[in-house]
């Protein structure tokens, strides 16, 4: 195992273990078989969507179209299949085509038209919701029985099928990212796009592909969500936006881009899912779940940030400069002359 990744990306598993333990101490029923089995399918769906968010964050973006893409995937699938087992394949194809197109538009807007990822994904989210409304004509349709049965099933009677799919997708993504030429170049493009460009990597192509692939993961999550709950409300993806961001952040992938770990993100997704299960388990409403999940993000990211602020302020007071946000410093034009390293850092 590579030592340089261990401290950063393994913390989440300790946190996840802790949350199961805390849940057990509060109420032993939160780790009972029935609770865990009702939590796992939603964990699987979140984990799949969170792969996409991880990829976007690694390329220094943030995807706010998660909710729209999940809803679009679910609606495109159920409406196209039209409660008909023969329509499953067509439904999957249409759903994936719709979300891939959305991702392509985002990618082109971000790279060619210099729209910030934030505005681009927010606008695409609105377009996807428009699609959902139009394609569903305002009312939901059920998923075909065959896929519903599959989604409810368990492999070897033990592991829910959705979890199997999630694990397979996570492992494949992880392998592609870490071990292939494309994955390594992808990581470099996110870590330092200018260096990647100077080394001859076509960074823009990688960025466009990122949004397309990420959208495909949201689309898959949407299809599985529909398959599992049979008849999802038409705007079904709303809770997943914060969920994916939280999973990525808790997993340890820096929002400033670069190295990320999909496996650690999966740990983050498990943490968030179990946190949700505990909140419901002790009888609080879903709204309390939101409050706690949001607080978890603020706490984790905030603590990391405060630590750095302290260090930076100490450095800065030594040079009499002012406190500058990381992004603005990075966006400043490079000095034209030999940079004395201690001037700005």
């Amino acid at each position, binding site marked *: 195992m590579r030592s340089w990744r261990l401290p950063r990306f393994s913390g989440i598993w300790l946190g996840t273990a802790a949350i199961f333990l805390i849940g057990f101490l509060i109420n032993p029923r939160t780790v009972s078989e029935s609770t865990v089995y009702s939590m796992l399918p939603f964990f699987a769906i979140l984990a799949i969507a969170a792969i996409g968010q991880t990829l976007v964050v690694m390329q220094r973006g943030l995807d706010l179209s998660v909710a729209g893409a999940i809803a679009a995937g679910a609606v495109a699938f159920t409406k196209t299949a039209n409660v008909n087992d023969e329509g499953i394949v067509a439904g999957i194809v249409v759903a994936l085509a719709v979300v891939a197109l959305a991702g392509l538009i985002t990618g082109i807007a971000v790279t060619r038209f210099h729209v910030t990822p934030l505005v681009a994904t927010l606008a695409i989210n609105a377009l996807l*919701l428009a699609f959902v409304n139009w394609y569903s004509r305002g009312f939901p349709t059920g998923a075909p029985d065959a896929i519903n049965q599959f989604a409810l099933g368990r492999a070897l009677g033990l592991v829910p099928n959705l979890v199997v799919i999630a694990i397979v997708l996570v492992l494949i993504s992880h392998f592609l990212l870490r071990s292939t030429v494309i994955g390594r170049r992808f990581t470099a493009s996110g870590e330092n796009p200018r260096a990647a460009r100077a080394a001859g990597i076509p960074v823009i192509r990688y960025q466009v592909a990122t949004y397309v692939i990420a959208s495909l993961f949201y689309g898959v999550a949407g299809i599985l969500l529909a398959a599992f709950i049979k008849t999802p409300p038409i705007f079904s993806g709303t809770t997943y936006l914060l969920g994916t961001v939280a999973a990525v952040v808790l997993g340890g992938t820096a929002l400033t881009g670069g190295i990320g770990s999909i496996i650690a993100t999966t740990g983050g997704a498990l943490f968030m899912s179990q946190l949700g299960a505990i909140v419901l388990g002790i009888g609080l409403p879903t709204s309390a779940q939101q409050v706690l999940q949001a607080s978890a993000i603020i706490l984790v990211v905030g603590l990391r940030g405060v630590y750095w602020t302290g260090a930076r302020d100490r450095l800065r007071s030594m040079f*009499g400069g002012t406190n500058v946000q990381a992004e603005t410093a990075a966006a400043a034009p490079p000095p034209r002359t030999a940079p004395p*390293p201690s001037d700005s850092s």
Partner: protein
Amino acid sequence: MDPARIALSLTGVSKTFPGVVALRDVSFEVEAGEIHALVGGNGAGKSTLMGIAAGSTSPDSGRVEIGGEVMLSASPVRARQLGLAIVRQNPALLPDLSVAENMWLGVRPQLRGGIGAAGEWARRQLQPWGIPIDPGTRIVDLSLHRQFIVEIAKAIAIEPSILVLDEPTEHLTAPEIDQLFERVRAVRERGGSVVYISHRIPEVKRIADRITVLRDGETRGTYENAAVSEDDIVRLIVGRAVETVFPPKRADAAEAEETAPLMIVDELSGDGFSGVSMSLQPGEIVGLAGVEGNGQREFLRSLAGLEPARGSVLLADRSLKLNDPTAMRNAGVSYLPQDRQAEALLLNMPVRDNMSLGSLAIFARLGVVQRRAEAHAVAGQIGSLDIKTPSQETEIRALSGGNQQKVMLARNALGEPRVLLAEEPTQGVDAGARVEIYRILRGSADGGAGVVVLSSDEIELEGLCDRVLIFSRGRVVRELVGPAVTEHKIQEAALRATQLRERQDAAMERTGRTRLRDFVRGDYGPSVILALAIVLLGIYATWVNPSYLTERNFGGVLQLLAALTFVSVGQLIVMLTGGIDLSVGALTGFIAVVASFIIVDQPDRVIGLAGTAGLVAGLVLIIGIALGTGLLNGLLVRKALITPVVATLAVSIAVGGLALWLRPTPGGLIQSGVTELVRTRVGFIPIAVILAIGLVLLLEFLLRRRAWGLELRASGSSAEVAGRLGIPVNRRVIGAYMLCSLIMVLAAFMLMGQIGVGDASSGVSYTLASIGAVVLGGASIFGGRGSFIGALLGAATLQQATTVTSFLRLDSSATFLLLGLLTLGAAAIYSTARHTRVRA
């Protein structure tokens, strides 16, 4: 000497940067009323010395006195207060603010007058330069050369007692240089002093009273101008002790002339250089020299495909595709960047990943990188280049500069390039590693590659290169071959070049396209377009359905518009600082929910307040909630350094969750007095919309005409420059989040008026709509620019679009569609227009 006549004195100053001693025990004194030139070659320490004087760099030891006051710690603000103004090579201007606003912010209040007169005042300061610079133009839209003139004019306007000019003539034409000299002399007449840093000895001879020469971080003496000749100065600058050992050069230089050239560059022109031709033999090292900023850097980078260029480049008789780094790399042209941190290193990644980045395909089978082959090749390079690293897995940030640079050279070597372009290959590298880097570069050449080295170290060029091209103001002015490649000859050619910049300012065409682009980029361009869109949509709607144009419909639409305007105005305040607030919608809903427990006619079972008591308590509580939420957002962004999106998204979900927790379903009847007040109309116009427009006009006035507005935009445009100007960036940004949240109280009252009950989800759609409205109104999401009138019209456009779709009996998906398309389209148009910068 009379101590009162000493304007600036530095005593025994030393400064070391990692790997380099920049200054060694330097003392430097400037008298009042003199023009004192500071000359020296590249890297002599001139800029570092003046950085210390200006308080932006802290010395390791030594003492700085300005006007007799001792500087106790490095502080640019303190140095400025003491009367020192510095003009650097890259101007400290706020890109999104106008020329007049920049000059106004940079000058002490007693000199500048009100902002209202800033334009006229700036025009007066700029007039003597004889260049038409409109004080209303944004800095980002000016060419670098004009930015420089603005920066100099600003510095002179401060009426400094010491004016420091760092290479001021690099970007100027001959008449402008005359103008500059006249102004500099005027500063001296006034009794001020000028420190004039330059490489250009003929210019120094024209202007200076005294001259101090720096070499290798030490002074070589201070001289009366009349007492030294140009030749004397050149002799003082050159002649550094050579302690480095260079590998032997190519033995048979004469014979090599006959072999076919590897690369032929023909009449290549780009930003900063024009008409450059050269050829490169296999096995040859060609140096590029010249005073910093004369086009040699841009030329080299254009060969790597990283800077735009036109002309032709042939590699082994094949024409290369310009402006495409991937194509260049695939053709075998490999580039070693100067700025390692910014453009070469993957700082958080291991040595191995850093080294193999350029050659992954070589180690791959079916697209999968073979770890063993990769590790083997990397180990080979670590051994042969003697790279000191604990292991291949070590993060590269842990290595010394010299070893990092060797890893970068190994990255290039693994790709087996035919042409290696090296930009300042030994910068920030210790002496030992330097020798090895020379050996590595010569080794590549001996292996048959062509090497181009750009260096500002003439000794390095002398020791390493077979041939050297000297650049001055964008052209090659001298070529030195073989034995003629000496430090002295290179320095002399660069220092004594009198080549002047060509400028096509006058010929800069104002085509219809650029005029349209300028209009779109302006503060109010988007507003005009939006107003037009609103009217056209209205006409269309009336044509389809005449009931659109009734007072009844209009009153209702305006009521809705008021709410969206409030939210958009708040959003814009935050966006001007370069942030974003995703919590506006949730907060609005939350405030309405809280109010629905207290600002009621029928007391709630738990709270028990109603009527006037409820109204007062409720107001206090919701204002407190709003300010607290804003403060939380601001602190998370500025103090905990969380990206604004994530911070406000999390706060949004938390606040939304709380609202839902309090009221899982809508309920709680708001005081009828309040809802009636909100719905009051003057004629058919709701008072709410009058209030909203009043707020817009007030904020627009503050934004353009008050220091608060300028400082807000300055903080968003460049927090770093704003901080250097003494603007309290943190206070402005956190204040912006608080003000934004406070305005959500008004938005929440609009909601209460519309719905009459507390509904947690009622505000949700406002978040996206407010961002859409602000972006439509032309605000930049990066901060620094935008207008409240634009935000108002953006909100009106969205409202109009929604109304029209409902009048056309389209379903609600059309609303989403319009919102998404308008936002995306507007962002694409504005961003693209802004991205094309003016070049000159």
